[in-house]
């Protein structure tokens, strides 16, 4: 089924000097979904978040929000809340003062400040300076600032980073509740369990390239991932790429990772004997994409 285009990343690329942080990343986000952006450190997740949030100015390609380019208007900033990497507040101000300041930037009713502080369970601590907050409290305050102006899209970059198991559970519950309120949520993370627990869809980046764009169900149940180890990957790669039931996810000179809609015997039959197959194994865990 073709997903409705709520947000469309259209061949987004970003170079820092000669280094490609993102290379023609192209995918779509459905409305009211929770999409997980997965990838190891340095895969381009934060760069993508920063492009969306306007922190990165120069980039190639385009991003469309309901068909409208985000380059042409700041609608995405009006409709979105962002929590990018570590929560960084004005530490010498209290939580409430920080949020009051942010509320001015979106013409939000200052009364909302206390409401969101209650929502993230920080109301009792509102008069404490942020410098006195624990990391978990700062993360929750990060969520509070993101939802302060009641946006319908939320972008959370590593929201569970640095949290203890209880903190992670609370954070996931908060994210789930926000989604139930009708918000579209885009989470960047390198914690696979978060994705399985929260997301309806997963995007995987590696070395700035999109390596997987799939629903969680599709990823876990409908298609199989195989790791094929062989002596000559080049010959096998051409054959595998040309087969309609096989999608090459990753390759190097020793192994090829594929997502196959065919069974393992058919898969083996595609691989030419000259490529000297050593082993083939099923790998249902998406953690392979981090290797």
């Amino acid at each position: 089924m073709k997903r409705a285009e709520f947000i469309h990343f259209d061949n987004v690329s970003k170079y820092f000097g000669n280094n490609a942080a993102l290379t023609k990343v192209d995918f779509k986000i459905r409305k009211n979904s929770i999409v997980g952006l997965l990838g190891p450190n340095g895969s381009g997740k934060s760069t993508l978040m920063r492009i969306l949030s306007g922190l990165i100015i120069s980039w190639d390609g385009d991003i469309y929000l309901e068909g409208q380019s985000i380059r042409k208007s700041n609608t995405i900033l009006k409709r979105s809340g962002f929590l990018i990497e570590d929560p960084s507040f004005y530490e010498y101000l209290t939580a409430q003062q920080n949020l009051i300041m942010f509320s001015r930037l979106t013409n939000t009713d200052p009364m909302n400040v206390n409401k969101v502080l209650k929502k993230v369970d920080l109301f009792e601590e509102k008069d404490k300076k942020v410098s006195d907050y624990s990391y978990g409290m700062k993360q929750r305050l990060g969520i509070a600032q993101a939802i302060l102006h009641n946006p319908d899209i939320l972008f959370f970059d590593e929201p569970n980073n640095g949290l203890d198991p209880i903190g992670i559970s609370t954070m996931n519950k908060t994210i789930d509740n926000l989604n139930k309120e009708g918000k579209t949520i885009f989470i960047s993370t390198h914690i696979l369990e978060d994705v399985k627990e929260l997301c309806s869809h997963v995007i995987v980046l590696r070395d700035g390239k999109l390596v997987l764009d799939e629903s969680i169900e599709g990823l876990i149940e409908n298609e199989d991932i195989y790791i094929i180890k062989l002596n000559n990957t080049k010959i096998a790669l051409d054959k595998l790429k040309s087969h309609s039931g096989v999608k090459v996810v990753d390759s190097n000179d020793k192994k090829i990772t594929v997502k196959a809609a065919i069974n393992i015997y058919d898969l083996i039959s595609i691989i030419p004997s000259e490529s000297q197959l050593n082993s083939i194994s099923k790998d249902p865990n998406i953690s392979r994409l981090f290797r």
Partner: protein
Amino acid sequence: MIYHLITNEFFKIIFRKRTYIGFLLIFILIPFIVWAIDDGGTALEKAIYGQLSDSFFFVGSLLNGYLASYLILAILINHMPFLSTIVAADIFSAEYSNSTFRFYLTRPVSRGAVLLSKIVLVICYTTILLGFFFGYSLLISTLWLGTGELAVFDKGILFLPENEIIYRFTIAYLASNIVMITISCLCLFISTISRNSVTPIIITISVVFIGTAISLIPIDFFDRINPYLFTGYINSFLVAFNDPIPWGHIRDLLAICIMWSGVFLTLSFYFFLNRDIID
């Protein structure tokens, strides 16, 4: 929106301790200097007017609050860039290094408006700090040493009547403020491209130091370029005590400072508007 941004900028600096360092230093230092002037007043008078006393007969004391203020300003004005740039130095760099722009700039506000609000703040801070320096110097000096005519050197000795003195100090303040704002604009520009708060201060003070040195070195080349450097006008507040006031010189000061401020602010806009925030 710009009103809200300016409010936020004031909100940010009001709660920062470093905002008050300059005020605190001035608050402590000036009474100390006034006391020292009072204590060494006779010797000071002799030093200033010693040679003239052979030809003139002075009745009463030349030392009063206005003269003390004049001396304090002349002594301390060269050090004011250290204090006036405290806020400008980290107005951007602190946001980069503390990563606070990650939240602040992900709101639907233009970077140009954010920059403008910070410029307004820096100008206000510099103006208020320098106003405090002039006002507090005059207040403490006159309360301590009283008022009277102001005796200054201008092609010999010049006695300025008491009813003109506040007007002269106001002109001096405005002239100094324009130069200090230019220095703050330089510091703000460096802050837009720096990731720490120390670098903008060091670069700004170095520029002021080199510029001042150039103005003091009697070489033709330096003499030719000096009128076009804002650093050559740091001590220009003294011309407010000349008779008549050389308005041409003040016009030059105004033109040069506005030109340099324009250059620094244009560069600030260029770098900030095109900078990727990746800290």
